């Protein structure tokens, strides 16, 4: 039996969260359900849809472009996550030291995160332009190049990795720096007294204390990497010769350029499954390796 007072508390509690629940429901849950329905239809988003059951998923299995796009997405993720998280850890440790102009460096590292993707894309398009670009011009002094970068099917994906690592590094650095502030001085001092060198302190004291942060960043970066789209849309547009057509780009192409709404929704669901598997795996490993003080 719930008392009168408790019940009215119950009601007002729901009222307080109503705005959030309504918004999340409308823009989060409803599209998820609608996407599932859509993936079972042939729907050009123009004319009334027809039910096709699991046909879209069956077609996906035999679609060579889809398979190639999964492969590319995973290659991208396996490059992006270690480079951005590992790079961020190194930079955060350096910036955490008491050095001159450290505020300036911190700002410099964070600026790319705050820059709009479109602006980043335009800048990189010009920097990496094969004929007139600054990067090839500078490389020519050390006898390298010229490279095709975004315009070479064999180099485009690596160029995207470089650009996105540059763009996202700052976020990871900020998170790591916040975590580094939380490492207790007495533990570091105790390790010093025990005769540990700089590397030993980092390896055995600091790094384990950062492990919850590392796990968070790996999971978060992986989800972002699996869904990479904007950076590709503003630079290579999935090309050249589909070399940068990752899953979400292929989804976009199917839904909004070829009007295969149902097929695109099925791709979205496969992406959801891949993300789920990756996240469960990482959390499972994480629960064994992460040290929560």
């Amino acid at each position, binding site marked *: 039996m719930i008392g009168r007072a408790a019940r009215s508390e119950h*009601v007002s509690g*729901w*009222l307080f969260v*109503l705005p959030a629940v*309504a918004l999340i429901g409308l823009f989060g849950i409803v599209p998820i359900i609608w996407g599932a329905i859509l993936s079972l239809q042939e729907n*050009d*988003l*123009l*004319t009334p849809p027809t039910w096709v059951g699991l046909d879209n998923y069956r077609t996906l299995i035999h679609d060579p472009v889809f398979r190639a796009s999964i492969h590319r997405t995973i290659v991208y993720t396996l490059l992006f996550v270690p480079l951005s998280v590992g790079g961020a850890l190194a930079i955060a440790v350096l910036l955490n030291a008491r050095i001159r102009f450290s505020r300036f460096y911190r700002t410099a590292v964070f600026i790319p995160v705050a820059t709009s993707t479109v602006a980043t894309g*335009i800048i990189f*398009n010009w920097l990496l*332009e094969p*004929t*007139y670009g600054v990067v090839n011009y500078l490389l020519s002094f050390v006898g390298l190049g010229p490279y095709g970068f*975004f*315009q*070479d*099917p064999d180099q485009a994906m690596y160029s995207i990795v470089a650009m996105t690592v540059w763009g996202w590094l700052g976020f990871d650095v900020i998170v790591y720096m916040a975590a580094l502030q939380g490492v207790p001085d007495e533990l570091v001092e105790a390790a010093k007294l025990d005769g540990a060198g700089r590397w030993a302190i980092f390896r055995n004291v600091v790094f384990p204390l950062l492990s919850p942060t590392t796990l968070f960043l790996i999971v978060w970066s992986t989800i972002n990497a699996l869904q990479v789209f904007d950076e590709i849309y503003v630079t*290579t*547009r999935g*090309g*050249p*010769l*589909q070399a940068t057509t990752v899953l979400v780009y292929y989804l976009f*192409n199917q839904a*909004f*350029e*070829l*009007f*295969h709404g149902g097929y695109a929704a099925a791709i979205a669901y496969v992406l959801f499954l891949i993300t789920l598997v990756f996240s469960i795996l990482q959390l499972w490993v994480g629960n064994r390796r992460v040290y929560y003080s």
Partner: protein
Amino acid sequence: MKRVVSLVLPLLVLLLAAASCGGGGSSNGVVNITVWHGYEDVEGKAINDAAKRFNATHPKIHVTVQNYGNADYALQKVLTAIRGGAEPDIAYLYGSWAANIARSPAAVDLAPLIQSDPSINWNDFWPAERQAVQVGPKIIGVPALVDNLALVYNKKLFDQAGISYPSDNWTWDDFRAAAKKLTNTSTKQFGWAYVNDASEDTVWRFDALLWQAGGDILNSDNTKAEFNSPAGVKAATLLQQMATVDHSVYLDSGNGNYANLFNSGKIAMLFTGPWDLSSFTDVNYGVQILPGDLNHQTISGPDQWVMFDKGSARKQAAWTFLKWFTSPQQSLQWSLATGDLPIRQSTTQLPQYATYTKKYPGAATFVLNEANAAKARPVIANYNEVSQAMGQAIQAVLLGKAQPQQALDQAAQKVDSVLASGQ
């Protein structure tokens, strides 16, 4: 009960607020209609001015023009609006979407209106414009804009290289030889530029070459690919030779660098349309019809005003506005304000037309060139898949990753299976 009310009330408020945003409709005898467009700057001002002129002379109709942002995404926006019942009376849509929008029941088939109302003078629109809005028996829009590709060249670079300017009987060989002479690797100067992003921008320039060599994109009933014919291979081979043997082509990745580079004297020739001329402020350029093989055909890229059914009174008002807005006199006003080509043939007979050709040098050649736009791209709902397959093939050839015949055959195979499945 109280709980239910507290849940329902905010929702009701939301719904009411949404409903009142709909707009349009009729009040005290004036019919309100809405026109969606993506015009900016000069053109944006021109369309606002046109609406003002129309409203001043038509007291029974009130036109509101609204900018929907980038026209590249207009189809998605209009489709979303149709789902919510908030579509405008008229929207500016790209020609390549004609077959897609024709499948929506909300779009008005203009064929009966055109037949019963000779005052539209339908045949006065250019042939390429009329072909582009014809979807089977339906006519899905009124021409809004017409473009075509011509050869735009930098006179100074031709003078420096000691080559005479392109003539109207230039062959592909003349063109290729000139491009080679106008290329200088040490100064990073190129004879020609080609948009190589595998999009429709890549494909339509190829279409012109294909037609010049006597080929076609699909067969006459749009059931099979034909671009891998000997004519198609010949056209793709020209691209291949220039890009991978002569290296006389700057390959633009699709971000429009070619226009800046032409304007800074790094590129000597372009296949481009009148929309680019206003950005060529720093070079003395000339305009000539495209070089030819069997003929000098060009390709036209018409866009259209599509009407949506919002009840008979609004439909009539929208039709009245479109007739007025696309009349020869208004078309000339538009061209004078924006530099766009006149959308009607009879506009060129108006006395003020001379003012237009004087104000926009090069425009006259583009208008004459419209007569070379003999063929149109197939108006079919899955054209985008045809375009995508061709785009990949042409890109592979330009990058030297595939031979012309092999690349086109592969694309044709893909297109055939798409056309056969009727998707």
